[in-house]
């Protein structure tokens, strides 16, 4: 068995000849369990002689007695603890990570260094604007680049993540209609959408109407015409949709919506298929949100931080959130006079550190490179789809864009589920695809290889999938008992939900 800290396809010998082999431990202890009273990992410079302590200055009645249970370790212990934890993770830099809809492409390491430059990392958000012109120019250039990439007229970099960008966009739709004296209550969402779309609608006060995609997996303008009314504020469309298919009727859909005064909100989560291929603005989108941690290569960080800029057409520009950058003779500043703005969604300006990284990425690729990135991402997805077809057929007959959604019959033939296939992939050192999504495909495997993986990696993924297929038929227990080569075996998620333990507590 693997000990904690060994991951991946490495053949871990079960009959190791190492004489003093360390026995596998039950995971890494919690930081709290490593504490020892009186130990410390930080020293302050000494207090001036005779100075009163802070607690006495403000009054002990305002102060807590202690921080019970808080860690007490030395610096090397803390460092070792977290480095050991790091070794329990799969990560894009280490493994193939074809997680559909998440765009786990390479995150250029130089971008982290750039964000950490003292002139960027050390800049306080309340710095007078004339002392922060470099940062503001970077933001202005990024806004312009994203407008060009999306074919939209104006961009706000304010939202903290894609889902916050969605909410921002929907609140702008609402404000736009209000300004025209209209109150519209509904938003149309396709059955293939990401879960954030309907959740954002609820937050923005809209009722959701579900549009059905057709048997071929895409939306028909006729369906949109059937659903749209004067009570529909907008439709949210992800393009390519979550089946990885380009919506062929998108321009008609936009027209159908616009005829009735409704907006087309384009969810840009799958922008990695569209760079230099088709611009949302030209599709008829009124709003598109982008996820910089997807198409624009900022690290996912185990679940953020990301950034979720929104790009809009002219008629929605007045409603963009605060603060809004403007340029005057003296340089860049923030525009305080924005009476129609929906307001702010967060503190300060934006997730600047992520924007720096994404801007550096755009500079590195340039216009041509971005176009090539999407084409190679599409190539990789279609290549995997084709090679896997005999065992894992595509859920759709339509051409795939940057990701493909596959199905399988192993559930019927061998009683092996998609989840079990995913867990078995882990044993091969491959992060599984997104599974059971989109909801319209039973047992779906949603595979997004991205443009930054080599043909050899793609081929080894095919090999692993074929082997798992074989095992499912001939040795299903091996698949069902996966993973075997990871720090832990199958985790009891149902148990976690039944008896929630959400924090460490000191044993009485």
């Amino acid at each position, binding site marked *: 068995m693997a000990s904690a800290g060994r991951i991946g396809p490495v053949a871990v010998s079960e009959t190791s000849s190492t004489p003093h082999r360390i026995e596998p431990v039950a995971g890494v202890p919690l930081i709290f369990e490593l504490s020892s009273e009186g130990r410390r990992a930080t020293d302050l410079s000494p207090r001036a002689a005779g100075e009163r302590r802070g607690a006495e200055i403000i009054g002990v009645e305002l102060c807590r007695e202690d921080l019970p249970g808080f860690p007490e370790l030395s610096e090397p212990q803390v460092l070792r603890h*977290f480095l050991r934890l790091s070794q329990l993770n*799969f990560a894009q830099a280490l493994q193939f990570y074809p997680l559909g809809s998440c765009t786990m492409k390479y995150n250029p390491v130089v971008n982290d260094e750039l964000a950490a430059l003292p002139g960027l990392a050390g800049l306080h958000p309340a710095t007078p604007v004339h002392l922060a012109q470099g940062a503001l120019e970077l933001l202005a250039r990024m806004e312009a680049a994203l407008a060009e990439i999306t074919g939209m007229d104006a961009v706000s970099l304010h939202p903290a993540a894609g889902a916050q960008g969605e909410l921002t966009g929907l609140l702008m739709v609402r404000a736009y209609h209000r300004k025209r004296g209209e109150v519209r209550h509904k938003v149309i969402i396709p059955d293939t959408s990401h*879960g954030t779309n309907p959740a954002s609608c609820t937050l923005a006060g809209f009722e959701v109407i579900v549009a059905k995609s057709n048997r071929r997996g895409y939306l028909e303008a006729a369906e949109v015409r059937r659903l749209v009314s004067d009570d529909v504020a907008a439709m949210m469309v992800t393009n390519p949709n979550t089946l990885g298919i380009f919506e062929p009727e998108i321009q008609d859909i936009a027209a159908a919506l616009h005829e009735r005064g409704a907006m087309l909100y384009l969810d840009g989560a799958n922008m990695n298929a569209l760079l230099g291929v088709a611009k949302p603005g030209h599709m008829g989108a009124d709003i598109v949100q982008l996820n910089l941690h997807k198409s624009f290569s900022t690290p996912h960080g185990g679940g953020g931080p990301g950034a979720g800029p929104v790009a809009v057409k002219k008629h929605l520009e007045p409603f963009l959130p605060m603060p809004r950058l403007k340029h005057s003779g003296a340089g860049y500043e923030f525009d305080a006079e924005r009476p129609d703005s929906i307001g702010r969604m967060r503190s300060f300006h934006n997730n600047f550190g992520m924007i720096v990284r994404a801007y550096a990425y755009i500079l590195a*690729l340039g216009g041509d490179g971005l176009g090539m990135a999407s084409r190679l991402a599409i190539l990789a997805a279609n290549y995997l789809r084709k090679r896997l077809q005999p065992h894992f057929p595509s859920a759709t007959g339509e051409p795939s864009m940057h990701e493909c959604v596959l199905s399988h019959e192993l559930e019927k033939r061998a009683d092996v589920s998609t989840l079990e296939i995913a867990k078995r992939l882990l044993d091969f050192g491959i992060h599984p695809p997104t599974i059971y999504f989109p909801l319209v495909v039973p047992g779906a495997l949603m595979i997004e290889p991205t443009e930054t993986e080599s043909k050899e990696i793609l081929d080894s993924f095919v090999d692993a999938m074929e082997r798992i297929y074989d095992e499912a038929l001939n040795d299903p227990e091996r698949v069902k008992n996966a993973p075997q080569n990871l720090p832990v075996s199958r985790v009891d*998620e149902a148990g976690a939900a039944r008896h929630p333990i959400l*924090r460490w507590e000191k044993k009485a």
Partner: protein
Amino acid sequence: MRFMPQTESDVAAMLETIGARHLDDLIAHVPASLRASATIKLERGLSEADVVREISALAARNTGASGFLSFLGAGYYRHYVPAAVRAVIARAEFATSYTPYQAEASQGTTQAIFEFQTLITQLTAMEVANASMYDGASAAAEAVLMARRLMPKRPVVALSRALWPEYRATIRTYLSALDGLDIVEVPFDDATGATDLSALDRIANDRLLCMVTGYPNALGIIEPLGALAQMTHRAGGLAISATAEGIALGLLRAPGELGVDIAVGEGQSFGLPLQFGGPGVGFMGARLTHLRQMPGRLVGQTRDRDGRRAFCLTLNTREQHIRRERATSNICTNHSLCALAATVYLSLMGRAGLRELAERNVELAHQAAAVLEAAGIRRRFSGPFFNEFTLKLANPSAALEAAERRQILAGVALGNDYSELSDALLVSVTEMNRGDEFSRLAAAIAEVR
């Protein structure tokens, strides 16, 4: 194209497998009119060296990032970040992993989040904390939404006027689409700078949904949080505290100890760079009885098949990817890596160190206030303060300019956000300031007083 490994022969072989001749054959189904106008008109790509040159040139123009004595705070604070924090979050194993949906391949991230949740419950004295929010302001907005789910029939959302202006603005935006809510600002006492208890008393009735208070508040004052919570509870409402300066929780009585129901805040002070305002990290602690209405991801402890302790995302039936339009929030990506930085930072500060650091902030801030006072520069409010205080000045912007001429960023003028405080300057002092800086600040301000 240094990030893309496909050689010409790879591309040719892959196309052949697919049965296509050219790359563009793969997008031939995209409407021609769209393809024709899709070219991205940006400069050609740059080498790594040229990218570095370009961004470094922009960075160099941010002259306010270095070379000045700084007393800027107002929601984001200058604290020393130990090198070990950066060493951990730079690890690609953490930085380039995704949300830990596959628990077996994510024990590093999930255990670290579990530790983060625990640290936040310890700091806030709340029973449960989530895996992180975007920032303090959006966490405050989510807290109000959570209160509304808990008590949907109560319409009045009370915000202390001394709550951070950006937090108030964010709450207003988040609530703007929801019907039947009434946002009321509770004024602060003009003498103490603390929220006016009698004003809250006047609206403390069965219509009150929640009361949101800054702790410390936007004027630097340590609010009487216990009394505010008690008054809110008497009316049956929920008490929400919002802390922008997390270090304060190392010393001040914990929100949970004072009766707060939902404690949110900004964790930027816990090991994150200023980075022109983001990304920071929001945190949220709450009562166990309110767990099901809590937004955001949660990690729980469980076992693997062999009985070993393991961690995984849990209670996700509250979340958007399962509940869709009935979810508690639309949050998906949060600020996980920033939460990791906070976890490492708080582990390094530790039980004694965090309190000492908080005390040092108090000591230095009060030392600064005393030096200023000795130079005849008075504080605007009399209430107790942590590491930030408000000066009363005839002309704050003139003072800022005079200080800037002496390479000092003296603080943040409050007049932009508070019309009634056009005479006020908010000064922040942390362990990054040294005792000998205060007389320079006093001399600069005294020049224009």
